[in-house]
Every structure is written in C-alpha cells, then in structure tokens.
C-alpha cells in the first residue's frame, strides 16, 4: 500500500530580468539568472519548478515570453509552471506554446474578469494545466485575498469555489505576510484546506520539517512551495526532501 506522494515545488521569483529573494513581496535581494537556477533545480530533481514573474501584471507588461524561451532550453525534463502577466487566453496559449507545462493565473486577472475568462483559458489548455494563485492575508481570523495590482482585499467567502472546481486543478495559497521569512508560515492558513475542495498548494515562509509535516498531513493539500531557502546551500532541495521523506518522492543525486 503506497501513500500518494505529495510535491515539493521550487519557486523562483523574477523581478524585471533577474531572479530575486523576496520578503513579503516588498523587499528584494538579487540572486542571478533564472535560466541557471532552473538548470540547477532540474539537476537536483525538483518535482516542479514555478517561475513567478510577479511584477508583470502591475506594470501591464503581459507574460515574459522572452524569459520563458530562454528557460525552456534549461529545464531538462522537469515540469515548469509559469506565472506573471497573463491577460487573456491568447497569452495562456503563447505561454504553453513556448515551453511551460502549466500556467498559474494571478488573482488580479480573476478578480477583474471573473469566471468567464478563466473558463476560456481552461477550455483551451485543459483544467489540469491551470492553477489559480491566491495571496492571503489573515485579519482577525478572517481570510482576505490580496490583489497587489489594484491593492485591495477581498473576503474569501465571496469566492464561489464550486464554480472554480470545474475550471482549475489546484490553488496556490501564499502567506503574504510571512513570505520570505524563516519558517513563520501561519498554520491558521490550513483552515482553508477544510473550506476549499480544490487541492491546495501552500507557499510562504515554509522551511522546517515540523511545518511541512503539519501542512502535508492534510488530505486536501497536494504540494508545498519553497523559495528563498533553495539558494542558500548545495543540495538544498534534496535536504528538504530528506527531512520529510515520507511525503516526497526519493531524492536524486545525479551521476556524470
């Protein structure tokens, strides 16, 4: 009887042209080239790689297809999720055509254009290739979705998740406040896994074995994302997997 393995998603945040370390999406430190990061994460055997070009929507720039084209040569057999700047189903198709295996649509897109446009994309590329990103802030034990482009908060109770279930395969929940911190992910976020039927991915300040265990023990959680800490040590990804080996697929150390 084998347990269904969960995924450990490597997250790369891209600001303008460079990959950065991010703290609460407010403070950034430069890391370097996204392509070389992708190549390295692929060699480390990352389950999936998520590229977040998080400044594109705010700057009204559309998806970063040039970057995607470069990265495609470096991903060497690893599934790639692209996010950032998606405006319509044409953008979604362009992203898939240029090498991404799945795409993630930001909340600002969803909030403005609602279910219809999201459905259009889902019909074109398939529900399995579509993820919705919901950055969450907790205020007085209530959950709010943060739209960083228009800078507003929406009570999560206003979202019709039954509708969304037909359109997206997973939802990425980011703990906005603790993103980039050393292990301060707010476990109250796990209540969302009870409210929302759609499989969830959690991200934002997740670094310790204890937190990962708590998060992945929940039936409705399919994956966790880690970001900054992947850049601090050699084999950081494998160390993470080893720490929580019952949840993740076996580690790999590539031989020549």
């Amino acid at each position: 009887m084998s347990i269904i393995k969960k995924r450990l998603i490597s997250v790369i945040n891209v600001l303008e042209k460079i990959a950065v370390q991010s703290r609460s999406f407010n403070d950034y430190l430069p890391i370097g080239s996204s392509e070389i990061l992708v190549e390295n994460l692929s060699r480390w055997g990352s389950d999936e790689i998520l590229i977040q070009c998080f400044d594109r929507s705010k700057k009204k720039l559309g998806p970063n297809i040039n970057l995607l084209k470069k990265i495609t040569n470096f991903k060497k057999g690893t599934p790639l999720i692209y996010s950032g700047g998606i405006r319509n189903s044409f953008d979604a198709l362009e992203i898939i055509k240029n090498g991404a295996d799945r795409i993630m649509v930001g909340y600002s897109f969803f909030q403005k254009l609602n279910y219809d446009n999201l459905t259009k994309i889902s019909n074109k590329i398939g529900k399995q290739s579509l993820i919705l990103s919901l950055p969450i802030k907790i205020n007085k034990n209530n959950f709010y979705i943060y739209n960083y482009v228009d800078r507003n908060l929406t009570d999560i109770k206003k979202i019709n998740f039954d509708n969304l279930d037909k359109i997206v395969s997973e939802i990425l929940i980011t703990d906005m406040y603790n993103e980039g911190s050393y292990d301060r992910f707010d476990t109250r976020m796990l209540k969302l896994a009870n409210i929302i039927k759609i499989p969830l991915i959690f991200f934002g300040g997740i670094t310790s074995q204890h937190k990962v265990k708590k998060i992945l023990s929940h039936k409705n959680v399919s994956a966790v994302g880690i970001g900054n800490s992947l850049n601090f040590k050699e084999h950081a990804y494998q160390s993470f997997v080893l720490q929580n080996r019952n949840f993740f697929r076996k580690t790999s150390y590539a031989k020549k």
Partner: protein
Amino acid sequence: MNITILNYGSANYISLVNFINNFLKFNVKVSNKTKDIVNCDLLILPGVGTFEGAIEQLKKKKIDKVLKKIILEGKPTIGICLGMQILFEFSEESKKNIKGLSFIKGKTKKLDQTNVGWRKLVIENKSLDIFNNSYFYFNHSYHQICKKKNILAYIKINGLNIPAIIKKKNIIGLQFHPENSQANGILLFSLLIEQLKKNEYN
C-alpha cells in the same frame, strides 16, 4: 531516426522537441503535413488541450484519414496523455460525444480529481521490469478504460488502477509525460522506441 510530432493545435511542442533533441539525438520535426506523417520512422501524438479540440483539428485538416491509414499499416506511434486518449473510441470529456480515432478499443472516463504529481508505475510486462516502482510525472483529469491485455503498466490512485502504459501492436499510449519525467522519462522513452523498432509484440 526521423520523428514527426503531430501538430494539431494547442500543445507544448517545445518541451518534447528539446527532450528528443537534447537526450535522444534523433531528428525531430513538428508538422501536420501528410508527407512528414507518412515518411517518418516514428509518429508522436503529443497532448495538451481537450479531446474535442484535438479531434476537431484533425478532421479539419483531414489528418484523421491519413492517420487511420498509416497507423493501421503499422507506423510506430506513441501517444502522450491527450495524444493517447484520442487513439481510443469514446471520451467523457466530449460533450458532443465525438468519436476518437478508435485504433484501440476502450474509452476515456473522468477522474474524480485531477491527478497531478509523480506516481509509481506498477509494471505488468516483463520487458519493462526495471521501471517497476519508478516515478513518472502525471498531469491529467481523464483516464483510460480498456482491455487488460493492452495494459503494460498502471498506477494506483484512490483504489483505482489507472493504465499508465498501453500498447496495441505498433501503437503505444503513455498517460504520463515522459518529457517531464526527468531521468526516468528519458530511459523509458528510449526503451519503448527500441522495442517499437524491433517490433516487439507481447
């Protein structure tokens, strides 16, 4: 070896092209021209998008007739994910109840939940034994139901046995994405191509 990846709409061809170019070093082109389909040594039907969308594209460009002819004549063919689904007869994904290419008897059913992630293969066929319990990347909302004799490997999801590798003579169907399965993907894909070349029918 000349490989043609069939171009039928909204698919991610680049991953597959890079995969073949970087790791397998075969000649590969993406095309929907009859001569490329007929003259290739191996035909690949890739998969992103929807069942209806794919079949409609094939019919529009009249490729479905070409495929029917050359595949039934024995052209080595590998269908990946959606590319595998269209080889069958029916799919629950099609609301208009459009028929698939019907090369293999069986149908496509909807999964309760999208299956995304790395799953262990249970190998039924001895020739693929080294891949027993190896992980491959799956990303699909539908699964196949077909005859046991056509199933070379399956995965277990929520008590259900889902076919992962299907074979009928010169046609192989893969539910997972070998181009996204890192080292295992490369090894398995090469092995399958070798088997198709040698015409191993088990």
